[in-house]
């Protein structure tokens, strides 16, 4: 690859690598698996990088597409090995208010644990729709399903998250989650 392309690729990985690692961690439910997934996806992105520059394609969108597609194919061979998180994280204490970083950490752990228990399509829809803020049609295109299916997965996924978070209560969840600006 040309030196200027090498540098732009390196700059992309440095500035956006962590974001995609975190997204992959939510998609897979495992930071180790997320690293494997993102690393393999970056190798593909590297090969495509010169073409992306020519066509002005967003590297974020391209990498996201690779990650989602690879994750989908990995799942077909690896889903039996996947297991929910081993331990249930501590719950945040609503009585202590929403500003405590420890509470936010605990809530994040709870949400990740709840996400890891969701069916993979529901999990992917929640991550792409609410974290990556993609329109429903784009989520549908990425996952190869209809917009109606995306809506149904989003509805059921949210309902399952609420059920998993249980007696924490939606008000407390929103207080804690919203204390750093939410989305």
């Amino acid at each position, binding site marked *: 690859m040309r030196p200027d392309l090498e540098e732009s690729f390196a700059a992309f*990985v*440095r500035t*956006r*690598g*962590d974001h995609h*690692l975190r*997204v992959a*961690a*939510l998609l897979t439910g495992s*930071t*180790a698996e*997320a*690293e494997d997934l*993102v*690393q393999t996806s*970056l*190798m*593909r992105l*590297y*090969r*495509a990088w010169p073409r992306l520059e020519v*066509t002005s*394609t967003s590297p974020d*969108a391209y990498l996201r*597409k*690779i990650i989602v*597609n690879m994750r989908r*194919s990995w799942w*077909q*061979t690896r889903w039996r090995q996947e297991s929910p998180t081993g331990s249930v994280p501590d719950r945040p204490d609503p009585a202590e208010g929403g500003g405590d970083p420890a509470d*936010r*950490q605990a*809530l*994040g*752990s709870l*949400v*990740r644990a709840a996400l890891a228990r969701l069916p993979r399509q529901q999990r992917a829809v929640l991550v792409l729709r*609410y*974290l990556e*803020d993609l329109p429903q049609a784009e989520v549908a295109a990425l996952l*190869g*399903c*209809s917009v*109606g299916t995306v*809506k*149904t997965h*989003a*509805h*059921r996924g*949210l309902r399952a*998250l609420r059920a998993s978070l249980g007696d924490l209560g*939606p008000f407390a*969840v*929103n207080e804690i*989650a*919203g204390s*750093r*600006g*939410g*989305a």
Partner: protein
Amino acid sequence: MDNVHELDGCDESEGQRLLTAAFETVPAGEAPAGELLRQVRRHHKTRRRVRTLVPAGAVAALGGAAAVAVTLTATVAAAPSAFAAVTAAAAKTSAESFHVTVRQSTVVGSSSGARSSVRVVGDFAPSHGLGEETASSGPVSQVRYLGKHVYARVSKTNPLGHGKPWVESLNVGLGYDPGTFLAQLEKAGTVTDEGPASGPGWTGTKYAFVVRAGKKGPVAVSGTVYVDKQGLVRHLVMTTTLRPVPGEPWERFTDDVTFSDFGVSVLVPAPPRASQVYNYGKLGLGYFPI
């Protein structure tokens, strides 16, 4: 899925808050971005070293497109299961978008005769009539497929261009569309199951095929096709022996095509400016052989 649920604004904002909390508190992993970058570079340096061991040909024959687009006639006689698996895979792959990496090698004259090879990479979305391929060498360096039109970038010395860098013609088929292979197979193919196979990131089955020659076109087409467990063509190796023209040496070429990156976005640049294009379509010639 028939039950569609509408989400209200509260649902949306709750979803955003929860996912943001989960995202922001993901624990640090073993591989920060800098480490990922080092691993990617190390991987590609290794690949480059391996690639340089493959001798590159000096002269490339015109077009993989023509190689795949040849039409033969004969009768179908195949083991139903193997034949059905391969034809279904070709159809399914043709409905996808994908990246191809091709090595086309040509032998002219005899088995010890002149040899050449060219490497082609490209992206195709046959269902949208889009594709782009770039060759490592040869008189046609790039081909863009845009619906009914095809644009080929030719060298200055290529008489096809009449002095212009691009030539335009009617699109009679994408370069590496498995649908074209399927059409050949359905007309004249036999397929046999050769057992399990695997490649980088996939496992599946290897099939051998033979397309019997008709009175026109190549005298022989045969090869192997690898289909993964998702029913997609992953690898196609096809050898075509052209019908000898009296007074000319015979020619045989092999297309070794690897399909990957299914679902990739295929973005074909806009057509070149008209002043840069020699247009065969407008001359009423229909198409030219890329």
